[in-house]
Every structure is written in structure tokens, then in C-alpha cells.
């Protein structure tokens, strides 16, 4: 079984981003960049499928400027067999990303496509569902467990009330939730080996995808600041304040 994993380079989750002074965008100069945490989980799941003998090949794909090669090399070090970069400086929005991924899916015909449920920069939570729609296949979103059986896939999903399990016909899209697995770290020998693994480069033109962004960012601003309140000395004081000052109990 061939597995395609889509990965995104994002601001590291430990960074507290701020708007630029002119409010045109967020300040990304000298900010630490990483592999999106949900994409780490996606790569890890593919690697586990390969270790279990279920997957035969893992292809990592990333869309963005040249520097996304860093994250693709990370995926290769974690166990992907080869990488595809779709190089563009245009910061495509989820529909554009989904169209580019669809073009790669058409080229590679994977049986399973794993994405993160959400990129932690844009907080969109859209791309996997969009790709599944464009490809006309099933989607197992917010997955906390997957099991492959011949031509179908069982996916346990984290839903609002608990867990739901669905069966999908393969090929299918899976998006990862936090509990799917705990990603490993890349070892030094594997990081060295990753440098020699193949990495193909395409442009959106090569894939005949026209990227039009129909959503424009007018401005960004910090959220309303919350003022820190007071420290109370005891539980009794807390209860008294909640009753008489805040009047919430």
C-alpha cells in the first residue's frame, strides 16, 4: 500500500506570535519554524504502517517556498521514502493546497492520504476534507485510531460527544488528532540518510493548477487583553468573592 503524507511548515507551537506594528500581518521575522505538530503525527502513523508491513512506500509532500525542504528532510529522516515539494511563494489557502495535493494524488495514486487535522498557524482545519471532496473519496477526520483491512479502512474519530468509528473504502483521506500516536524523534544516522533520499520539485504550473486567493487579509490585531485579577488567600475568600463580587455562584 502506498501512503501519501501532506506536511506543512509552520511557526513553532511554543512561539507567541504578534501582529506587525502596521497590522498588515503577523511578525514572522526570526521566528522559529517547525513541522506542524499534527503533521508529525501524520508522518509517524505512516511510518508505523510501514513498520507493520501494511505500507510499502511513504511519500511526503509539502507546498510552499524553497525552505519547506527542511520539513521534508525531517519527514524523510522520520521514515518517509521520498519527498515531493510543490514550490510556490504565493502562500496558497486550503482550497489551493487541496487542488495541488489532488494533482499529486492523480500522479501517484496512493491508497491512503494522511494529513494533519489542523495547521496551528491558520487554524483552518479544512485541507483534508477539501482534498477528499476533490478526489471524490471518503474522509476519516480527527482520527485517534486507524486499522487497514484489505480494501477498506476503519477510522476511530474524536467527535464532540466521544468517539465514532467509520469504515471507508480505499483510497481515503485521514486527518490526525492528538491521540493517534506519539511521534518519535529523528535519529542522527537517519538525518544523515535522509539527505540522500529523493526529493522531486514541481511548480503549480507543472501541475496545471491555477491558484487564485479569494480571501484577503484586511488586518490583524491582538485579541482583547485580559487583565490579571487578584490572588485570594483562602478557599473561603474565593467563595465569598464569587458570591458577592463576581456574583457567578
Amino acid at each position, binding site marked *: 500500500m502506498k501512503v501519501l503524507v501532506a506536511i506543512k511548515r509552520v511557526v513553532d507551537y511554543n512561539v507567541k506570535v504578534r501582529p506587525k506594528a502596521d497590522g498588515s500581518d503577523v511578525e514572522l521575522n526570526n521566528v522559529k519554524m517547525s513541522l506542524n505538530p499534527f503533521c508529525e503525527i501524520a508522518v509517524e502513523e505512516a511510518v508505523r504502517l510501514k513498520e507493520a508491513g501494511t505500507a510499502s512506500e511513504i511519500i511526503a509532500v509539502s507546498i510552499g517556498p524553497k525552505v519547506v525542504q527542511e520539513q521534508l528532510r525531517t519527514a524523510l529522516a522520520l521514515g518517509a521514502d521520498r519527498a515531493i515539494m510543490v514550490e510556490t511563494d504565493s502562500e496558497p489557502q486550503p482550497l489551493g493546497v487541496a487542488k495541488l495535493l489532488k494533482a499529486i494524488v492523480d500522479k501517484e495514486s496512493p491508497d491512503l492520504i494522511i494529513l494533519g487535522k489542523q495547521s496551528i498557524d491558520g487554524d483552518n482545519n479544512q485541507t483534508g476534507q477539501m482534498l477528499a471532496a476533490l478526489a471524490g473519496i471518503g474522509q476519516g477526520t480527527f482520527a485517534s485510531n486507524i486499522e487497514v483491512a484489505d480494501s477498506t479502512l476503519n477510522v476511530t474519530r474524536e467527535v464532540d460527544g466521544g468517539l465514532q468509528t467509520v469504515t471507508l473504502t480505499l483510497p481515503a483521506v485521514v486527518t490526525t488528532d492528538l491521540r493517534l500516536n506519539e511521534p518519535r524523534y529523528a535519529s542522527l544516522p537517519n538525518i544523515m540518510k535522509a539527505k540522500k533520499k529523493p526529493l522531486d520539485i514541481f511548480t503549480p504550473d507543472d501541475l496545471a493548477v491555477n491558484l487564485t486567493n479569494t480571501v484577503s487579509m484586511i488586518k490583524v490585531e491582538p485579541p482583547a487583553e485580559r487583565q490579571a485579577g487578584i490572588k485570594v488567600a*483562602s478557599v473561603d475568600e474565593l467563595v465569598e468573592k464569587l458570591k458577592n463580587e463576581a456574583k457567578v455562584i
Partner: protein
Amino acid sequence: MSILVIAEHDNASLKGATLNTVTAALAMGGDIHLLVAGSDCAAAGAEAAAAHGVAKVLIADNAVYAHQLAENIAGLVTELAADYDAVLAPATGNGKNILPRVAASLDVQMLSEIISVESADTFKRPIYAGNVIATVQSTDAKKVITVRATAFDAVSASGGNADVVSLDQVTDAGVSSFVSEELAVSDRPELTAANIVVSGGRGMQNGDNFKLIEAVADKLNAAMGASRAAVDAGFVPNDMQVGQTGKIVAPDLYVAVGISGAIQHLAGMKDSKVIVAINKDEDAPIFSVADYGLVADLFVALPELDAAL
């Protein structure tokens, strides 16, 4: 202008988030229609017809829409969307699962989790775990949008008198089927709708200790929540996670116990009216957003709180 709102429901009744989404739709203006797609969902449909501000309710009652399978419902919504200028859904698990599929099928971008309607094409939405609020404008002819329920008041659940129409088209993508579900059963108010939420974090040490939270929650008629660390460690189920990648809550009172206050957690609760933090570390970041902070060992403070209430 006309707007189709996808109702959140469990067939038997309408979920509150639907009413907040109607408010967002009203702010965009125009005729509001509610779609209730499900199986044996007439009761939810009747509740939808009573909601304030709704002109028409479309009921799609068929086994293929049971369990809200995204592939089937998105097919239906995509067909219906031909007649509307905008499609809205609450940013619930179902809304997030279904709506991007609709947007891609319509070849339009989608806006996730808007928190305000500035005009019919301009909206605000949080990005980067809520560290930044973006104002975005969409030039797509059809808008496809999920709505953060806590950012909008609910319309009244009663007083409306919408026309009810039964749809007979059946869209079955035939690529997915339901196997099983494990849903939490609880007498407590629902996490995202409760007036009071008491949440526990890694500081609780194990699942059994959540009984201490439960006792306090019982006294306050509160819902229970948790941090990611508490869920990952298996103390409590996943549906209790509050945060950037969990549930968004904004109750009148949020009590964070043994939670450090990582930005990903704050993203899910910092719009609560009053925040209380109980933590033994006086430098814990949670205190920077708390109205009332208590520096204490939770194993002492929770039983005391239980007794004082």
C-alpha cells in the same frame, strides 16, 4: 440574500450552537433557512421551526444521513447551495467535518470559526491559537463559513414559525459507513453550553482524582473539562479537552485546577466571564488571565471548596 444554516442536532433535539449560528447569519442579513439532515429527525426539525429568525426549515430525513456522515451530507448541502448566497454551520466537530467538503465541491474558499460579522463579506477570526485576530474579506460569490458559537448570542429557541419542507433527494456517496460510537453519557450540562465549567489538568495526577473535580462540579451544576495533558495521560476522555484544538468554551465561570495555562489551553477558555485558577505554582501563566487566583495544593483546596459550597 439568502443563507442556509446547517443545524447541529442529534435527531431528537436541536443543539444550542445552531441558535448562535442563526445570530451570525442574521448579522449577514437576508432570508435564513435551516437544514436538518438526519435520520428520524422530525423532532429536531420541529424545534428548528420554532427558532427565532428562521424563515424556512428543510428536513432531509433518510438513513444515509444518520450519524452525520460527511460524505453524504456534504453532497446534499452542495446541491442545495445552488439556491443560496451563503452556507453557515456551527464550528462543531460535525460542522468542521462537513463544511470544507462543501466548499471544495463548490470551488470556493472557506472561512473557519468566525467570531464576528463586520459586513456580508468581511469577518473576524482568530488565528495562531487566538494570539492574533484577523479581519478577512471574501470575494467568493458564495460564502461558506463555520461560526464559533461562543462569540455570538443565541436567538430565542421559541417564538418562530418557519415553513417546514421535506426534501426527498438522497445523496449517498457510497464511500463511508458507520460502524459504532462510544458517546459519553452524563447528567451534567454540555461542556460548550454550560454556565460553569470546572477543568482539571496534569496536576490531578490520575483519573480517579477527577472525583474531586466532580464533587465540586456537582455542587455548581457545572460541566467538566480538561487540559490536553490530562486527556493524553488517559485521566479523562477526549471530548473533555478544552483549547485551540479541543472545545471552545466561554462560561460565566471557568475554574482551572492544576492547569498551567499554555497558550493552546487559554485559546479555548480565555473568553470566559470570570476565571478562577487553583495552582500550587504562583508563577503559573494561568494566573495572568485569572480574575481570582488561589495558590494552593489542589488536594487540599478542592475538598475545602466542596465543603464550602
